[in-house]
């Protein structure tokens, strides 16, 4: 039996988000990150209940091909009629309704690009296989995903208004049971009535929406909040305002109030925060290693800002002008909603999922078939269906052609021009995961070398289709500074602000590296290499990375941890190289031991230059 929207217990924030979207589809969509089995997809599917009857609800399969997504020639109909018959793609089928993607973070990047494009245009341009058409594609995107599968591309998130914050509140496993119990006794009639009421409620809100107004001061306060949270882009402002308006409309009010603004901040801004708001006492509360140092401030690219320092000053002035009360309110909203440490969000979820998943079989796909393109018969795998599509309309004319007279009448005539070969999403490149020891025991100049090496590798990334990820470890735990990427700009930016000092959480780094590798594997990257730049002296245990009150582990425990992790890395077929930058007379041989545990290569480069590190990494 289908579970209705009103039957679902809990998930209040996600429900609220979906209701806002139902009131104002211009919010673009809702993304719900949540752990496996939390009922997030049940909720997303139940969303159709509160939409007007007949609203399209299209579910996007993860393995969708480009022509199914955008649209293309319908082979059967074309063969039958001899005229190109168009088949609309999934994107245009969702027009006026909902496009639902489960496991959004696993969606292939080319599919993501197409969705982004359709969302920014509100239509799909079909320029393929001789077709040139525009199909309307105005849809709301509802996506759910498990953060342990990896993150959703930022470009896509930017076009989606609402992101339900990932907090413990999203874990509904226990509540799902309640749902099941309740369901058994539930009266169908009650459900129907409740749904009807809810639909009416939303309808009324829709009618109310144009009447709702927001003051200039309120808009300013929202923008100020976006700035202090370091949210990138200007599009988000419009989403925040829209969310506040929709919230007021749901309450049948004609003015936006504090609650509306808090909700908008919670659902639109906080999930995109790149830093904690600057508030003196709050800043001091944060542990030194997690807190982005003040100079890191504009996530939006500091050096880019320098030509016009005036804007920053302006922003400050504006801040002063904003009525204190609203300002206070916003800070309050942020502080109550923001987890203690925003950097911990994704880590917290990973911790939960590890048990049981460690022994999982690897997914060794060799890239996925994405599209067919014209090519020589021998230059790749022939894509049979696209070749037939291309040949189909010509059969009549070709059969009449005198040159073909000798051929038996029944044969399908396929010419060289028709041949299409398969193109796979090329993941043939290697993912280099750099793990840079930024602890106090590492001298600063080694950071510079590591930075140089990563940047050099990235320079060549687009040629070899290689990717680079960057993990730094210092203080209590390791941190993914850069998820797998080919972007030089971003890596440089992250590297430029990398601080050093503190303990050496080696185990945490290995763990995070291994997690990153696992995620990359599910996305089709098969070759992975760890490049560890360290002296190999781990002194912070995995436990203390997650729990600040954990007991200090003994040296043996630390070693055991590293050993166990190394074994997992090795058995998952991840190659590694340990680059020891420790001075000779200080070395106690920890780094070679680490290399041995990992089954990788050990390189002693006390004065390693960037190029040497690159060579060492590439020589595998």
């Amino acid at each position: 039996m289908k579970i209705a929207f009103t039957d679902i217990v809990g998930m209040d924030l996600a429900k609220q988000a979906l209701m806002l979207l139902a009131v104002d589809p211009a919010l673009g969509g809702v993304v719900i990150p949540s752990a496996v089995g939390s009922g997030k997809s049940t909720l997303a599917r139940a969303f159709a209940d509160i939409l007007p009857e007949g609203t399209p609800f299209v579910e996007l399969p993860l393995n969708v091909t480009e022509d199914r997504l955008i649209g293309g020639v319908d082979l059967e109909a074309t063969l039958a009629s001899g005229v190109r018959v168009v088949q609309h793609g999934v994107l245009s089928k969702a027009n006026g309704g909902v496009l639902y993607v489960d496991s959004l973070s696993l969606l292939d990047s080319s599919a993501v690009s197409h969705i982004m494009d359709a969302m920014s245009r509100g239509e799909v341009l079909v320029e393929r296989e001789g077709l040139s058409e525009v199909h309307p594609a105005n849809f709301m995107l509802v996506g759910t995903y498990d953060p342990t599968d990896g993150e959703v591309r930022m470009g896509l998130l930017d076009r989606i208004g609402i992101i339900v914050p990932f907090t413990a509140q999203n874990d509904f496993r226990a509540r799902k049971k309640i749902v099941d119990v309740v369901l058994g006794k539930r009266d169908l009639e009650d459900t129907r009535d409740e749904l009807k009421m809810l639909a009416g409620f939303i309808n009324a809100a829709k009618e109310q929406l144009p009447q709702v107004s927001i003051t200039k001061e309120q808009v300013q306060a929202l923008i100020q909040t976006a700035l202090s949270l370091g949210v990138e882009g200007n599009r988000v402002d419009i989403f925040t305002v829209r969310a506040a308006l929709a919230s007021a409309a749901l309450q049948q009010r004609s003015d936006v109030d504090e609650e509306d603004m808090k909700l908008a901040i919670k659902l639109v801004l906080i999930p995109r925060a790149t830093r904690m708001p600057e508030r003196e006492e709050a800043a001091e509360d944060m542990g030194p290693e997690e807190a982005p140092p003040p100079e890191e401030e504009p996530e939006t690219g500091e050096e880019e800002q320098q030509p016009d320092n005036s804007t920053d000053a302006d922003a400050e002035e504006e801040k002063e002008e904003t009525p204190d009360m609203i300002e206070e309110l916003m800070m309050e909203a942020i502080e109550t909603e923001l987890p203690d440490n925003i950097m911990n969000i994704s880590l917290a979820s990973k911790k939960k999922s590890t048990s049981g998943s460690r022994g999982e079989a690897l997914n060794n796909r060799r890239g996925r078939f994405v599209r067919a393109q014209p090519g020589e018969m021998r230059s790749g795998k022939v894509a049979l269906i696209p070749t037939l599509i291309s040949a189909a309309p010509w059969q009549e004319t070709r059969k009449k052609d005198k040159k073909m007279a000798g051929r038996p009448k029944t044969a399908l005539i396929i010419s060289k021009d028709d041949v299409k070969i398969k193109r796979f999403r090329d993941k043939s490149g290697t993912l280099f995961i750099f793990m840079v020891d930024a602890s106090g025991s590492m001298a600063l100049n080694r950071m510079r070398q590591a930075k140089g090496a990563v940047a050099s590798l990235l320079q060549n990334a687009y040629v070899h289709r290689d990717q680079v990820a960057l993990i730094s470890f210092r203080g209590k735990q390791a941190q993914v500074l850069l998820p797998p990427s080919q972007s030089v700009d971003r890596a440089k930016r992250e590297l430029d602000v990398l601080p050093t000092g503190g303990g050496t959480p080696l185990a945490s780094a290995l763990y995070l590296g291994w997690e990153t590798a696992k995620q990359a594997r599910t996305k089709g990257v098969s070759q992975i290499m760890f490049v560890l730049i360290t002296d190999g002296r781990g002194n912070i245990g995995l436990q203390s990375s997650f729990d600040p009150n954990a007991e200090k582990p003994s040296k043996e425990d630390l070693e055991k941890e590293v050993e166990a992790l190394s074994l997992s890395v090795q058995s998952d077929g991840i190659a590694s190289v340990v680059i020891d930058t420790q001075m000779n007379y200080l070395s106690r041989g920890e780094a070679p031991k680490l290399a041995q545990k990992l089954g990788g290569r050990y390189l002693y480069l006390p004065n390693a230059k960037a190029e040497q590190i690159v060579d060492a990494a590439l020589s595998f």
Partner: protein
Amino acid sequence: MTQTETAAKKTAARKTVAKKAAAAPAPKKAAAPAKKKSGLAFPFTAIVGQEEMKLSLILNIIDPRIGGVLVMGHRGTGKSTTVRALAEVLPFIDRVEDDIYNRTPSQFVEGEDARKGAKAIDPATLKTEKIPVPVVDLPLGATEDRVCGTIDIEQALTSGVKAFEPGLLAQANRGFLYIDEVNLLDDHLVDVLLDVAASGKNVVEREGISIRHPARFVLVGSGNPEEGELRPQLLDRFGLHARIITILDVAKRVDIVKRRREFDEDPDAFMKKYSREQVKLQKKIQTAKELLPEVTMSDEVLTDIARLCMNLGIDGHRGELTITRTAHAHAAFMGQKVVTMKHVREIAGLCLRHRLRKDPLETLDAGEKIERELAKVLGEAEAV
């Protein structure tokens, strides 16, 4: 009737060329496009900030030889909105009536004469029409046959004639070709583009016929550098490189929200509100275009430009050439007939940013580096 003409008639009647133009205040609108019109584009003059990108686009209208513009920057900063808004401030060009390649009469004659067995055409007999400079959108999922053109199947089936069905490159001739997320474009399409951009011609051979047509266009690309790098050969093709960042000024951002909401509420009224400014800008661009041939540049300025490029260690001469052309266009846009170093200074970053050698350890921003060298060159120039 030649094959191309047939194809042109048919295509013009049913599709894209007229699409973008539809919203522009055309003096004499060609046959209304049968195709569903896209929603109104946000007016160019209502876009807040992002002056660098706006200037680059305008200068490319004034002188298409500048070689296009690459707009890279943060998400949600109005990159594609701005490029799509461009269509409405573009000037008009003359083309032979219904010509799918947007050719002038002389180009038309030249093109048709080259065809086998075609009769000589007297340019005087050709009817011309005014159309806004075309802006053609190349979506990421486009297939090669739609980009380059292919054989018109329906016509081949119904009349037995193998006629060419022009692609996006044909439509973009003498106009703008826009690629959003250009850094994600498929490699084989990039190859096609590089080829055509270099030769200005598109050659298609299929089903036993061979077509060659002019394809000169201003390439406009946009993207977010965090999503991936651009192939160096393609990067080099772009005349200008504009960078765009999140606006941090609260007042400006309030303004953006206000205007966007106004537009969403009543697009027609909003367009009306800005129509005067739109027309004004369009006129200013047209005037600059006319002024451009009269703009001059002294040898001193030219020397300074050359010295700047040399000091920055820029390979080849494309840097100097682009600065020179862009500075001319900039002066024309300002309504001035003589190019000074002031003009050069304002556009040097745009022209050179992507041509600097990449040094992995360099932390200085490209723009600052250019500015620093520029100051040196200017200092020297003043001292002499």
